[in-house]
């Protein structure tokens, strides 16, 4: 029962936090463009509206897979949220493979998106799905390599030893300082931030959706409640990405009982959200080949350098 309670609280809480983040994202975007921007509860209105609308399924779609895919993606994102919050709130517990589970579970929303787009039977969505596949192949390697840097740092400490536990990483950073403060950690943080931008499929990595060329791409055929599920998954991911980044590189939530720690965590969270939004607003969309080149030949070597530096103790 405890587990179910933690899961529900974490996913619903993350949803609310995510809605606030997506409002911050839209508001900052509007301010960058000298506009006023939407009201605070706009993400809630959007979802409420979509839930009350009709669901259309095209004749060529495989209805069951088409409608199941968004639900699977949502569930996976909720699981990842629960694991990340648990590691921050109770760092002494959790199990040795937390980080691996989070990274794997976080790929499921993208795979569900690909499945749903291919099941929808639309050529635009098929192009979007193929681009999403390439994007996944591109960013997954540097993302995993950047996540290994804190793991190597912790494994050099005799008190902790080799572990993939997120809770241990939070405790380790309380003693040894933020991962970001070391040379290898700073390089890995930059790589991880760019990879998270791609994971959220935000500009400059929004080729799977590309409103101006694919008219919504992989989400083109979704309407009503199924589109609402996709938006909720995005909302969850937008909340998870800064928590993941803060846990690995910015020390996480150092002490769940202290108000100052919560305030500092909120500061880290908002800083990452605003950074992601500013990257989104100041960059043009990259073509899929440029994206793959950037990740494989640009960021992967940087991540490899960070791994070497971490192994040498910098």
């Amino acid at each position, binding site marked *: 029962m405890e587990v179910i309670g933690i899961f529900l609280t974490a996913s619903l809480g993350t949803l609310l936090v995510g809605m606030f983040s997506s409002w911050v994202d839209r508001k900052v975007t509007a301010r960058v463009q*000298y506009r*006023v*921007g939407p009201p605070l509860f*706009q993400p809630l209105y959007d979802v409420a509206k979509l839930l009350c609308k009709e669901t259309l399924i095209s004749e060529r779609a495989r209805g069951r897979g088409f409608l199941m895919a968004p639900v699977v993606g949502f569930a996976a994102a909720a699981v990842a949220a629960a694991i990340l919050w648990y590691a921050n709130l109770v760092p002494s517990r959790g199990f040795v493979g937390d980080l691996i589970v989070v990274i794997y579970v976080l790929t499921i929303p993208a795979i569900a998106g690909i499945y749903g787009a291919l099941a929808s039977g639309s050529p635009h969505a098929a192009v979007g799905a193929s681009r999403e596949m390439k994007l996944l192949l591109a960013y997954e390697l540097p993302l995993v390599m950047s996540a290994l840097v804190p793991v190597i740092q912790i494994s050099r400490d005799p008190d902790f030893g080799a572990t993939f536990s997120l809770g241990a990483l939070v405790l380790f950073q309380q003693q040894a300082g933020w991962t970001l403060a070391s040379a290898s950690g700073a390089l890995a943080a930059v790589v991880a931030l760019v990879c998270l931008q791609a994971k959220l499929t935000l500009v400059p990595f929004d080729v799977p959706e590309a409103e101006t060329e694919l008219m919504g791409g992989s989400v*083109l055929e979704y309407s009503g409640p199924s589109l609402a599920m996709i938006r909720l998954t995005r909302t969850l991911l937008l909340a998870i990405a800064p928590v993941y980044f803060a846990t690995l590189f910015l020390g996480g939530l150092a002490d769940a009982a202290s108000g100052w720690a919560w305030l500092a965590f909120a500061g880290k969270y908002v800083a990452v959200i605003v950074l992601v939004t500013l990257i989104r607003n100041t960059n043009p969309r990259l073509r899929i080949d440029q994206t793959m080149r950037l990740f494989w030949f640009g960021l992967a070597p940087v991540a490899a350098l960070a791994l070497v530096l971490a192994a040498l103790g910098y």
Partner: protein
Amino acid sequence: MSWRTWGLKRSPWVYHVNVGACNNCDIEVLELLTPRYDVERFGIVLVGSPRHADALLVTGICTRQAEARLRAVYEQTPKPCVVFCIGVCACTGGIFRHAYHFSRPVDQVIREMDPKAIIAYVPGCPPKPEAMILGAVKALATL
């Protein structure tokens, strides 16, 4: 019906359908998104697919070529949705009402498929952005 339209009134996403306009209304529609008018204040967002849309902004006289496309787009829009006839051409056919390529006014095409369709008219050549915002406010108030 009120709880069903609660969200719709606060976040109408629009899809822009050109069924034979001279581009003047289209330019004025895009002006709604600029900092001067910024309709995202009211939750109005331009979307790329009719399946995501709650409102169709139809511009131009409905030509014989475009009529079938307009029907298809209306069928692909999830209900409830609002159809906006932007500009005098979409409302009545305007100065092109006797032209050989003119089919019928937009509202007749939509009504024939769906007699209970919600249709709003924003006349003008082209209508000012303020007029379009007023039209949107009035149409959403009747929901």
